[in-house]
């Protein structure tokens, strides 16, 4: 059965909101999107086993909170000031997963200006796998797994919200 158009629009709107909050380093609002069993993950390879290999980021809910406290401390020099950013989210594919969850994937391209040091314009891109859950009628993010095209290459600071 095809998914109702309104449901597709609602999920897309959630992705665009999440992207904008990340772009604008709106730490509190971005953090509020997560469920308690959250996983914010940037692996070095799509099929990487986190029990055996190291990832760039593998944050559970507690570590996400620590990351936000660090960013808000005023002393996170690698994000002081926060990088100006804009990203495009596209090629969205949505699959229902059980009664109140969705597996969503999308491509993204992100321009990030490293104003803290080099003022290089860094260009990031890849595919994002989201797991979303409806909690009390509202969409929330359970998993955001970012598959960078260059995840296994030397990369610049990833201290902003990817």
């Amino acid at each position, binding site marked *: 059965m095809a998914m109702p158009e309104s449901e597709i629009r609602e999920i897309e709107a959630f992705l665009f909101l999440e992207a904008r909050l990340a772009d604008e380093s709106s730490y509190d609002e971005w953090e509020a999107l997560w469920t308690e069993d959250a996983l914010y993950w940037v692996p070095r390879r799509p099929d990487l086993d986190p029990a055996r*290999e*190291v990832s760039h980021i593998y944050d559970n809910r507690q570590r996400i909170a620590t990351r936000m406290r660090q960013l808000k401390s005023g002393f996170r020099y690698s994000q002081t000031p926060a990088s100006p950013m804009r990203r495009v989210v596209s090629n969205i594919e949505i699959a229902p997963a059980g009664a109140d969850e969705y597996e969503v994937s999308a491509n993204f391209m992100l321009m990030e200006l490293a104003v803290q040091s080099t003022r290089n314009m860094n260009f990031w891109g890849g595919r994002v796998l989201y797991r979303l859950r409806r909690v009390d009628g509202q969409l929330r993010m359970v998993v955001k797994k970012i598959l960078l095209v260059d995840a296994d290459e030397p*990369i610049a600071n990833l201290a902003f919200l990817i």
Partner: protein
Amino acid sequence: MGVQQSIAYEGLVRPDRVHGSLYTNPAVFSDEMDRIFHKGWSFVGHTSEVPDIGDFRRRQIGLQPVIITRAPDNEVRVLFNRCTHRGNMICAKESGNTATFVCPYHGWTFGVGGEMRGVPQQGGMGKDFDKSAMGLANVPRLQIYRGFIFACLAAEGPSFDSYLGKARKLLDRACDMSPDGEIDLSAGWLKHRFHANWKMLPENNTDGYHVNVAHASLMRAVNAFSAQAFDEEKGDNSVTRDWGGGHTELDFAARYHQSGRPFQWFGGVPAAKMPDYVARMEQTYGKDMAQKHMIEGPPHAIIFPNLFLAELNISFLIPVSANEVIQYYTPMLLKGAPEVNARALRQTEGAMGPGSFLLPDDACMAERNQLGLAAQSPEWLDLRRGLEREYTDPETGLLSSAVSDEITNRSFWKEYLQLMSQAA
């Protein structure tokens, strides 16, 4: 044609300061690649990265591409990544397992140990074509110590023993954190690009002075360190050390012995959460020595010029240019210690790499240093901190100083000057 002037390094490295041009001048970088990375010894990789016959992994020594392989005779080789025909970089894949390297240009084929297997239409090569002389070139000198692979691209020069010197003990201390006496670097490498000179990395990595300032955000976000940490004036009796040969250490053992609790270097995890590790350590090393290892933890030290024993991580650098360097990091997994390794993975992600809570701030500082050094005045970087209070430790015989002192930087530059002063 102009005459190329050689740089007089004696005038640029002084006991208490170094000249800014050493970080920015491309001619200096070129001399460094030749005199430090190509004529001297450096770290290349670890035997656990190529555990099985046929395993290979690309690496770089200075600016030169090499392949670490496990040959059919089970020996580890380091081969130049260059076809002996026309120079094609024969191995493009980062790592894997293979029986042969086949050049995609004309089909010259080599075994994983480097020996030549054959060339298409061999008749055209002439009667005297000797396949046994046309294998991939081995690096002139290779030494493996407790799994750490070091290479030197010059056939002559200082021996490996004289290069490593007393710092052999630092590698021992790292390996002896494992109840099997062996480490395992199989968790993959995080690679981090710094727009900064490579020397800022070994300098920063054993610099205790920056931690409370550059990493203030982590201190505020978590109780990562005690209130006295990195401040000798507040009672941190950790020690900075010159191991000779440019090898340096920031040794926290004395601070950890103040409370005598094990695993302060590991987020203070209670020993009760790793019972098998504790039992196996006691079995291997005896109760007292095991306790000492678990209190003091693995070393925080630089093996000149490019290896960083970063406590429960291994890190190394690959220079790119005067203004760019890549730093690699992986968890130092301990054989026979699955309880430790599960936590080590998550600890590495927290501390090391471009997405972590520590290293992005170090990268930012290194890049800002590089930008600042474009200013011509003052000409010098100040390295005097601790000069008036460093001492020879009677127990180790090593020049030592307080936790925030720049003895580690001075020790790096002493070796640097020695190597760079040699005629090309």
